[in-house]
């Protein structure tokens, strides 16, 4: 059958037409072999634009369609659907990307037009070789894996569980809660963080649809949307969860005090058997093997002796679970920037320089100082407090990005100091105050009214070397006050470093485990930054909260809920359509050399023992085409990316 190809060139308003002679491209396309009709339209993606294609398909009986417009990442589904509606197999449509990869990136209109012609010719040649394909449908497993039990993960898990879908929530630490559980107040409303978080934590712990696996980590993931299998390691707690009543007697009796570097940010202590905080969910403690006297010396067992429930299990071992899930939501959160990387700020050398998380714990009534703001000695109240913004953020030496939350939590810190130490002076050193959301600017004005000093300047150094009697025994903050244009040395008693948010240390391994990408900063990349912020380029894997980028609690909650909504939408559909891009073997050409079998990353190729020929297991094939490239006699071909199609496209691209 002779090719009857329709070519549709889009102006995209002026986005394409400004740089590319769209009409010229359409005229050129009409001269290409097999092209029956060539048109241009101001917006091909509009209803009339799509109807243009549909009408031609019905009236002219086209055998293929080329749409020269934006990136196929955006409108390929639109035009495939349009073709489908008019009876053409959607895989007989090919897009030429003349916007993102042509009109927007080329200065010279003549060169852009030539390139657009080449791209169209490539697509026309390619579409002539394309084959009709049917997407295959697979059922979706209703269970969802949520990785990370911070506020974003909690919200996502609750939304799905409340909608009636089963959820497995995996948390690395002994309790869910994440960073939010460590905070004292939340800006700008000054809600008690624990008071608004713990009801949600309880709801997770008690929800019949949520399987909570704390003190656990995901070790691997395989499969694809609708049908993932994840491997989860439940670390040994040495406490039987089904027996423990959470009475905490073990924690009282344990003789070993350990500095709590995680929950108390190094300010407080915990026991070797511990539950990180009073409202922990689950409230089953864990034994820290590293510090337990029994594990170290074989003696003690105080916890076991006093446990009324007999819940201590010394020979408990890590348990590895393989769980089937249909979708995955990653809410792995952030870690605080380590200010020791900025030696001139003196953190860890100057004892009264604190990190923001330390200060949070200090302000917390349940924290190590019972909410009293004191110096490192545990008793002296500071008279002058400096809060240094943008530590590790907005600084090309560390992280160029803005960490989003530091301005607001710094304002909150200033307020807390005013509230608890009315005599104290508070100095905020800032670059800009970023308070752009609901109620934030008002909060900033409240602080101005409370008498906080705002000094616009990036702190150069924090030292303890006095130059005047006033500076004796104090920390000196050096900065240029850019509003008055003067260098300042400000003696203070306490410095709080408002550290930025960074990706978790193992973020790249996690990304690799789930087949998604990280930006250069290390935050997970969303499918589209504006329009698809919680999806990733891997179907069935979603992201929520600070692992996607620095954000505050309400954004994390919104993203958690958004990710859950996306997943719920997929589950309720019941099945998912997969691209029919699969490898197939031409048995006559196959010599059974096994090269493909060894190269396949999914073990999707087996050797048929009766015939000594390679055979692709369709359910396992992901369509990467590595086998097709490895096969010397070219007995393997990858549908929709056949050698013939790629060579045809290249010929079209080159012979303009």
């Amino acid at each position, binding site marked *: 059958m002779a090719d009857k190809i329709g070519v549709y060139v889009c102006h995209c308003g002026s986005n394409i037409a400004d740089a590319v002679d769209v009409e010229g491209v359409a005229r050129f396309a009409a001269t290409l072999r097999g092209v029956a009709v060539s048109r241009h339209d101001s917006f091909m993606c509009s209803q009339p634009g799509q109807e243009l294609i549909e009408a031609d398909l019905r009236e002219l009986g086209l055998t293929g369609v080329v749409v020269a417009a934006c990136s196929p990442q955006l409108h390929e589904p639109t035009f495939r659907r349009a073709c489908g509606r008019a009876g053409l197999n959607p895989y007989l449509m090919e897009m030429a990307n003349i916007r993102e990869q042509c009109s927007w990136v080329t200065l010279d209109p003549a060169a852009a037009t030539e390139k657009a012609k080449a791209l169209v010719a*490539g697509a026309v040649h390619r579409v002539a070789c394309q084959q009709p394909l049917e997407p295959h449908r697979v059922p979706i497993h209703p269970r969802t894996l949520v990785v990370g039990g911070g506020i974003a993960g909690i919200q996502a898990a609750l939304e799905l569980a409340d909608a009636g879908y089963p959820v497995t929530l995996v948390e690395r630490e002994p309790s869910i809660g994440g960073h939010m559980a460590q905070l004292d107040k939340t800006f700008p409303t000054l809600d008690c963080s624990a008071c608004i978080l713990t009801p949600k934590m309880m709801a997770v712990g008690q929800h019949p649809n949520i399987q909570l696996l704390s003190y656990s980590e995901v070790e691997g993931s395989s499969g694809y949307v609708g049908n993932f299998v994840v491997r989860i390691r439940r670390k040994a707690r040495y406490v039987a969860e089904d027996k423990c009543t959470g009475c905490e007697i073990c924690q009282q009796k344990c003789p070993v005090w350990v500095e709590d570097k995680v929950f108390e940010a190094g300010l407080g202590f915990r026991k070797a058997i511990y539950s990180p905080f009073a409202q922990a969910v689950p409230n089953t403690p864990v034994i820290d093997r590293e510090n337990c006297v029994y594990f170290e010396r074989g003696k003690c067992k105080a916890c076991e002796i006093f446990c009324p429930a007999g819940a201590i299990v010394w020979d408990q071992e890590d348990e590895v679970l393989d769980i089937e899930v249909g979708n995955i939501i990653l809410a792995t959160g952030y870690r605080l920037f380590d200010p020791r990387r900025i030696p001139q700020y003196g953190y860890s050398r100057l004892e009264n320089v604190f990190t923001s998380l330390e200060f949070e714990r200090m302000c917390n009534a349940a924290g190590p100082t019972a909410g009293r703001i004191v110096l490192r000695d545990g008793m002296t109240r500071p008279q002058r407090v400096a809060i240094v913004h943008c530590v590790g953020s907005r600084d090309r030496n560390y992280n160029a990005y803005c960490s989003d939350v530091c301005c607001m939590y710094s304002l909150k810190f200033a307020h807390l100091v005013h509230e608890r130490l009315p005599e104290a002076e508070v100095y905020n050193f800032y670059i800009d105050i970023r308070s752009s959301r609901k109620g934030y600017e008002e909060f900033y004005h409240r602080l101005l009214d409370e008498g906080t000093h705002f000094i616009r300047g990036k702190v150069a150094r924090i030292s303890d070397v006095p130059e005047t009697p006033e500076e004796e025994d104090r920390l000196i903050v050096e900065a240029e006050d850019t509003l008055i244009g003067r260098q300042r040395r400000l003696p203070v008693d306490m410095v709080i470093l408002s550290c930025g948010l960074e990706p978790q240390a193992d973020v790249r391994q996690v990304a690799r485990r789930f087949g998604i990408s990280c930006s250069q900063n290390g935050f997970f990349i969303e499918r589209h930054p504006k329009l698809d912020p919680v999806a990733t380029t891997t179907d069935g894997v979603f992201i929520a909260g600070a692992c996607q980028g620095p954000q505050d609690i309400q954004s994390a909650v919104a993203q958690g809920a958004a990710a859950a909504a996306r997943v719920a939408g997929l589950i309720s559909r019941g099945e998912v359509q997969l691209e029919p891009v699969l490898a197939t073997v031409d048995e006559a050409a196959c010599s059974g050399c096994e090269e493909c079998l060894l190269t396949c990353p999914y073990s999707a190729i087996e*050797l048929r023992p009766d015939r000594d020929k390679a055979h692709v297991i369709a359910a396992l094939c992901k369509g990467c085409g*590595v086998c097709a490239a*490895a096969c010397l006699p070219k007995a393997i071909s*990858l549908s929709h990316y056949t050698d*013939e199609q790629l*060579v045809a496209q290249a010929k079209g691209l080159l012979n303009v």
Partner: protein
Amino acid sequence: MSEVAPVRDTSENDGCEPAIIGFLCNWCSYRGADLAGTARLKYPASLRVVRVPCSGRVAPELVLRVFQEGADGVLVLGCHIGECHYHEGNHRMVRRMQLLQRLLGYAGIEPERLRWDYVSAAEGERFARIVSEFSETVRGLPPIKSRLRSDDTREVWQASRPESQDGSWRTVNVADARDYAVRGKEDARWPALHEAVAEALADHAGVLALRSAHGDVAPHLFQSRDELHELALWPKYPLPAIVRRLQDSQPEGRLAVVCRACEERGLVEMAKHRQVDWARLTLIGLACSAEEVEACRCAQPAPFHAGVVVGEPTPGVAADRVLAALPETSEDRLAFWLSWVQRCIKCYACRNACPQCFCHACALEDELWVERGRLPPPYPVFHLIKAIHMAGKCVACRECEIACPAEIPITVLYRMVSQDVEELFGYHTGTDLEVLPPTLLKLEQDVET
């Protein structure tokens, strides 16, 4: 292909924009390219993109074909190592492109015309920079169409043989290797060979060796002692291919085969690719004589796997003259090869004689890769597809070159590829049954790039 007149003729105009084909991975680089567009970054219009699901989809044949079609440069972009959507497709891509790039260099096509790199979905700027740099590089090279234009075959064929001086740089001394005078009983190794074969006959269904008959030699499956007086040692004959056919036709029996070191290496590679059944095979090694080693300029003439070795192993001839013989510049190398390959009559003797060309279908016969009805066959696709297929397979038996009626020194390319496989991947072709084929090896660098 298109019906319109070319708007740009690369052969005439040195100042014009080069034509670059980019194979971009759908998950990272293609999105990175889109991001460059969204950010309105500007880069040269010379790049034309082919979207592929994974950079590992890009077969070397595809790159060669695109050069043949007139691309001045080929850019292959994939995910960063450790971030491949398909786990390790980009490892495969890098392995293949490393080899292909070096091969292009030996073949007289500037290796700078091929570049591979990593661009993530977030790296629009990096994408634009790579394209600009690469365009700049390629712009500095002459258009490939003018380079690959070939002159009339017959004239070249009739012109004097383009061999430089004495041809001592060849990997094989064709004249000596083609000494077809049969050597049998008069050879010093004959009695020992006779004894070894006779012994093997006792517990094997047959012994494959050479038999002299009617003043010529042919491979023969010896099955009784009565025939053994006809055992021959020379001329060399590609026996491994016959082992494969014999084993196919006799799915049960156990065979012995008399093999030289190169044939032994060939059998190892064939066994790895499941073309011969190593478990049903006994090797009777035949150490090549000093004279034979010299004829083949063989570097490793001593059998390694055979339990019995007939004859005294002779030290190999160091074949370090090969690269020295290749001209220095790409231009001269291309001229060198063009002058040779224009003698090619596309008889496929090189392929047919090759024990490693066991495929049931051949890319060299596929119109998609090699244009039909054209003599000499198009350079570089025809000769370089064969050469890249030899990576990790060429066992330096020289059967191809001995068989070539045009005496094209094609093994020079294969030898260079084998050397690269050793250098880049530590792979010694034909020596170890257990090691995976070289292009399957993963890159050592991990995660952080």
